[in-house]
């Protein structure tokens, strides 16, 4: 066991912790940040992704195909949810929370009734590598890279594409946007579908390391929300990255200096303190600091 291995292990854990938060929150950030909807059923979209990926995998599809299929199905379910229910609850935080809690009960319980209490997960691919006497799973790094890729993709989509411009306009001022010829309804539906698809993909990715059950997603939702809210609304996607950097950093340090129990508690404590210091989230805080610096 060498120092290089220990140091790499810390970095590895940091990336791993970050990947967890980023993946769990990547779909939520769109739905919460752009539509003001707290989607408690996001975990169920992840669960659907996990089921679809696993089913596709065991009928012979290669893993990447299974993951894409998971995204597609979750996206379709998202469209149905949005058209039938969610569209009545834009920007109503707690009402949307209640209604999506109901949806989450329906989805998880429906899957339980239809498919039974569990299914086989997928094998973890890629094996391991070692650094300085420590060995590490390759897949966790792939998760991290994928998470970064997905976030960057979403950012680019909303930043550069014409859909992104229309979406941002619709979020900012729906009436103005529709007067300018943006079909706001379709933009909302598409945004929700993309958020849902991201959830499905995240679920499929987690399905390769976690057991799959109808209640698979519920373990991710609260932590994902804390991350999203911590990020703040000033710049949603950047905020998510800040929040993941911050929370995963605190967790990694605390788990290694103390133990993993403290590490877990410290995420919550860090969110508590972070929100008090930055009452509108990290991205808002950063933006204000920058503004103040420019003024001087």
């Amino acid at each position, binding site marked *: 066991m060498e120092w290089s291995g220990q140091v790499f292990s810390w970095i590895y854990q940091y990336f791993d912790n970050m990947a967890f938060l980023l993946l769990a929150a990547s779909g939520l950030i769109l739905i919460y940040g752009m539509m003001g909807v707290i989607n408690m059923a996001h975990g169920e979209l992840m669960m659907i992704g996990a089921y679809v990926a696993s089913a596709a995998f065991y009928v012979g599809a290669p893993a990447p195909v299974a993951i894409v299929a998971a995204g597609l199905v979750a996206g379709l379910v998202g469209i149905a949810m949005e058209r039938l229910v969610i569209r009545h609850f834009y920007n109503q935080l707690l009402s949307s*929370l209640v209604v999506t809690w109901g949806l989450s009960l329906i989805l998880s319980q429906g899957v339980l009734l239809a498919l039974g209490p569990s299914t086989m997960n997928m094998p973890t691919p890629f094996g391991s590598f070692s650094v300085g006497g420590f060995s590490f799973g390759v897949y966790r790094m792939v998760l991290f890279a994928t998470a970064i890729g997905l976030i960057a993709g979403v950012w680019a989509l909303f930043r550069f594409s014409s859909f992104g411009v229309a979406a941002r306009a619709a979020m900012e001022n729906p009436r103005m946007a529709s007067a300018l010829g943006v079909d706001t309804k379709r933009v909302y539906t598409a945004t929700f579908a993309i958020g849902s698809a991201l959830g499905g993909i995240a679920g499929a990715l987690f399905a390769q390391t976690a057991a799959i059950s109808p209640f698979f997603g519920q373990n991710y939702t609260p932590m994902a*929300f804390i991350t999203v809210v911590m990020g703040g609304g000033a710049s949603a996607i950047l905020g998510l990255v800040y929040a993941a950097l911050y929370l995963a950093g605190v967790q990694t340090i605390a788990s290694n200096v103390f133990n993993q129990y403290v590490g877990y508690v410290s995420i*919550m404590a860090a969110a508590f303190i972070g929100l008090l210091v930055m*009452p509108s989230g990290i991205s808002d805080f950063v933006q204000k600091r920058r503004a103040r610096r420019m003024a001087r």
Partner: protein
Amino acid sequence: MTGVTRSRIPALLAGLNGPQTLGNSRLFWVLWLAGVAAFALLPCVASRYQVLTASNFFISAILALSLCLIWGFAGILSLGQAAFFGVGGYAYGIVGINLIEATGESGAALVVGALAPALLAAAVGALMFYSRLKGVYVAILMLVVSLLLGLFMRQTADPAYAIGGAYLGGMNGLGPATASDPSIPNLTLGFGELVAEFDGRGRSFYWLALGALVAVYLGLRWLVNSSFGYLLVAVREDERRTETFGYDVRLIQLGAFCISAALAGLAGALYTAWGTYIHPDGFSVGPNILVVIWVAVGGRKDLTSVVVATLSLSWISIELATWGEISLLVLGVILVAAMLVAPEGVFATLGAWFGRLMVRSRRRPAPPPTAAAKLGAAR
């Protein structure tokens, strides 16, 4: 409507009526009294199980009212109301175990059960409101507080986690530290020889819980229709504007928050006394969301609706639990349907609709059209 009814209602009721609450007419109060009387007489016809279950529903309704005060009237969203309920419950149990043999009563434990969460709310609330935390950030922060409390309570399985004679007990719940310590006492009120014990399974506890619910309900009606209540609504509608009248909005929010926490704590203490059991599961996400569901489905801006919704939903979900696997699915469908049909709350919408219907059927337009109203109509 208010203008008409004000003069006709006895002075006693005037303080309880106002536009902050639906149901201000004489008819409403007659029906209200009939409802309370029916509940009071319920133990005479219902089985023991129904009585003790209804006691639990009343306690839930107090918890729901506590959230209604801050969410519906002061505009503070909280996803951590069950934290105060849990703290109140544990406080009652801990104090009760330690004092019951010395004093022979557990009224002090009930008081601590309300005060402990109020103190917690004062501390957390001061930090939140003086940091200018708002909206969803308050909601999430309170959820984090609740989860942290739950994390702590779950890992107290070690016997070292004992406060006097009370062993926190981790996931298995609060209990006596040693064989010689008493278990969580029934609610026992009074002094010396003059004590009355309220067994959570009996009628006396039922009436006590009903009385507590009625008292909290009337107390909150009075509060929200008082000038402090107007202030709460003012804060909800426009924090900044209220501040420009010289009010420290943060202090008002903190006050409402502490009152709400004390009521939630009272409910928690009653819950512990009811089942003589308290466990850390109450701090997790589900129970916190459940309170929000009760309030949202009822209609967060009306106290009566919240009580009716809590009683109905509790009853529905406990009946559904006997249906087996399909129960949660049906509950989900009910929630989604309720929110789609009446996003502002099923019972509040129903009440407002019936209010309009009553007015129309009497063929009397609601307010005597003032010059101002005419002017408004003309525009």
